[in-house]
Every structure is written in structure tokens, then in C-alpha cells.
């Protein structure tokens, strides 16, 4: 697996740059990744979504479905896409050091 040095920490990542070692994640890493997914500078709203995803991940071992993200954070889907133009699932997942959400053709 490839590695990347983000915010001074060397991490294993997958081919799209999703961190594979969630235990090493820090908010500084998230801040750094936010630059590449078009969310920098991170606002309180961004962090609210990222933390909601991390909490859900802790409980269920997966990134929540989009509808669930909207419900938990209280943001409309349109707002979520404004906040995370890379996608409100994979954007905050990548920033939060979580695995890539499963796609659907």
C-alpha cells in the first residue's frame, strides 16, 4: 500500500488517498486533506459533518448513507454538496480519516 506524509505524520493510504490507519488521525491531518477536497478553510459546519461521520463510524463500522448524514447533521442535501463539493460522503470521510464509502453503479 502507498504511504503519504500528511501534517508531518506518515500514513498508509489507499490509491485515492483515503487513510487506512484511522487511529493515527488528528484534526491537523483533516485540515491538511481538506485542501485537496476543496473544503479549506474548514468551518464549524464542515467539522460538524466530519465529527458526525466519525461518530457513526465508531458505532456502525461504516460511513453513513447520505440521507443519514443529512438527518444527523440537520443540513439539507444541497448545503452538504456546497460544503463538500467532492461529495458529502467521501469528502468528510477522507478528511475524517475514514475508509472510502462504497459506490453504487
Amino acid at each position, binding site marked *: 500500500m502507498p504511504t503519504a506524509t500528511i501534517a508531518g505524520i506518515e500514513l498508509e493510504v489507499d490509491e*485515492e488517498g483515503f487513510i487506512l490507519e484511522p487511529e493515527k488521525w488528528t484534526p491537523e491531518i483533516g485540515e491538511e486533506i481538506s485542501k485537496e477536497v*476543496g473544503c479549506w478553510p474548514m468551518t464549524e459546519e464542515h467539522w460538524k459533518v466530519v465529527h458526525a461521520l466519525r461518530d457513526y463510524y465508531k458505532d456502525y463500522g461504516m460511513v453513513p448513507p447520505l*440521507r443519514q448524514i*443529512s438527518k444527523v447533521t440537520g443540513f439539507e442535501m444541497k448545503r*452538504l454538496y456546497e460544503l463538500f*463539493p467532492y*461529495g458529502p460522503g467521501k469528502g468528510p470521510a477522507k478528511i475524517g480519516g475514514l475508509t472510502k*464509502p462504497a459506490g*453504487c*453503479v
Partner: protein
Amino acid sequence: MVDKTEMLDELEKGPWPSFVSQIKEQAEKNPISRDLLRQLEQSYKDKKLYWRHGGVVGVWGYGSGMIGRYSARPDLFPGVAEFHTVRLNNPSGWFYNTKSLRQMCDIWEKYGSGLLYMHGMTGDILLLGTTTENLQPCFDELSSEASFDLGGSGPGIRTISCCVGPARCEWACYDTLDVTYDLTMTFQSEMHRPSLPHKFKIKCSGCPNDCVGAILRSDLPIIGTWRDTIQIDQEAVSEYINGGFDIVSYVINRCPTQCMRLTEKELGINDRECSRCMHCINVLPKALRPGKERGATILIGGKTQLVEGTIISSVLIPFIKLTPPYQEIKDLVNKIWDFWGEYARGRERVGEFIQRIGLGDFLEGMGIEPNPYMVAHPRENPHIKFEEYYREGD
């Protein structure tokens, strides 16, 4: 030049058009198509697929329309290391002018493999094969210069498609083109920002011939129908008979509900028994027409393959008049999304959801009264046990 393609060459034999010839033509000038051909030849030799279902790819602001596809052997076939598909929303009824098609093709040759697939299962134009890097500039040009927008993909409403409807067909019971356009515009945001448990397809067929296969290929088929009687032109019937056409063998005996009879050269139909199979109307187009009071039947739950297997849609709304702005359909769709979105399991189509919870509970959740017309097939038992809906004393 391309390597030897002995296996694929077999697929060029015979009088039929061949996709291999098409890819070979592109391969002369395009490295992506060249490696596509090589990888495909290898697949036939090894009897193994070399595609890897990819990660999520996309363009800014959209959650749909791009499908990631990667080669499992990028070392051997670098041209198709990334081979993503772009889905473009089709216009109602698939009517294009040559200018827009040329623009689209030029842009696609510039950024992708130059290979197209028209049209995919959902009706979109599929542009097959480009790199992650090219997705954004390709989309920018397609949307700004050629005025195409992305279609649906992922767990959301998919591109809505329809038959040619009243544009070219005399049987259309409602304006399929307008309904498709109107719903597409209404649900733009939901199409481009998917947030449902799984895909949701709407297809509009103008009559029960169902030329877009809506009943099987969509979660919410809207199929044209009539609620009065089939229009009969007895003079035209006589013409058929006098012309030597065997109406009894070819029409009356083939009526699935046996609701037709011929007396003294006059054709009679017991419309109460008619199941709208369209056979007689198709065979006697000069003599028979759908009734005058036209609208549509809305069905629910169709899908093919995967998870629970194929499900044919069953009737949800037996008859509805369709007039702009089609608010009843929009309200119905939103209600389905709310209920199914809330209670479905991940990756559960609405048809599977109804199979799991039962149509009775689904109707209750939707606030729709059960109705004997809610059948899976014409002239068969309804899904619902009606006694549970009767209160004591009813």
C-alpha cells in the same frame, strides 16, 4: 497497430454489425481503444474479466453521472488503467439534432475513448472510457458548449426516460415527453445529489405496449391507459374482413381474456373484461383505438436481477389523469422517498422493500387506500388480504 485479436475477430464474422469492428476503427487513432481491444482479447483467452469495479469518481458539485472503472492489470493495459463512464441525460424520447450530436462526439474524442453507447438501461447516453483527470474538463465542455447535463447514478433517482409518445405514435394515452421533461427538471437536485437507499427509476410508456419496458425496468413505471371503452370503427372492421383478414384466428381467439366476439361482421368488445393487452389494437390499427378518456396507471417496484431477483411492478394507482404540472405524481414520488428512505435497509430497492414489509404496510405508510385493482398481474389475486382492513360492523 493493434496486436493480433484472433478471438475478437470471430465476432466480426457474419452479416451483423460488430462492436469489435467499431472498437478497431477507434483503435487506429486512440490509445484508450487500442488497450481496450487488447484487454478484451486477453479476457476471451483467459475466460476472465479484467475490470475492477472502481471507487467513486465525480465532478465538482455532483454526486452522480460518473462511474469509476479501472483495469485490473494496468501494467499490461495502461490505456485502460482508468476507464470511467460518463452518463449524459438524454432528451425526452431521444430526439437530437445533428449539431448537438456532433458537438458531443467531438468533445468525447478529445477527452475520451471516442466510444459511445446509446442508450443505456436508464436511457442515458453512455460515454465509455476516460481518465479521472479528464472528467472535469470533459464535463465542463459538454455542459457549457454542447448543453448536455449529467445523468443519474448511485443511490438516487436515475435519468428518467420515455417512449416516443405522441411525437410519433398514435397510441400514446398521455404526453410522455412532457411528463419526462417536467419530472427531470423537478428532480434535478435529487438526481445529481443522490441520497436514497438505492437507485430509483421512473419510466414513462404512452400505452400498455410499454415500448420502454417500464414495467420491468423501473421502480415507478407510468404506463398510459384508458378507462372507457376501446373505440371501434365497424366500417374499418368490415374492410379487414372483406380484404380476407381472418379476424377470428388472429384477433378474437388470441384475446387473453376472451372478451371479443364477431357477429354479422360487427365486432363487439366486453370492455369490463379487457386487460389492456393491446393485441387487438396492434393488429387492427385502422379499426380499433384506445378509449377517449385517457390517462395512466402508476405501478411500483419493478427491477431486474441482483439481491431478490427480478420483480415485475404491480399496480399502485390504477388510473390517473395526467395534466401539467403533474403535481400528484411529484407528491407521490416524494412520499415514496420519505417512507422508503426512512425505513429501507441500505441498498434495498423499493420493490424489495415492499416484498419485505408487505404491500399493506407500504400503502399504510403512504396513506393510500388499498384497492382491488392493485394487482401484480391482470386477473389475478391482489397482494392484499382485505379482511384486515374491515372494521367490525362494516
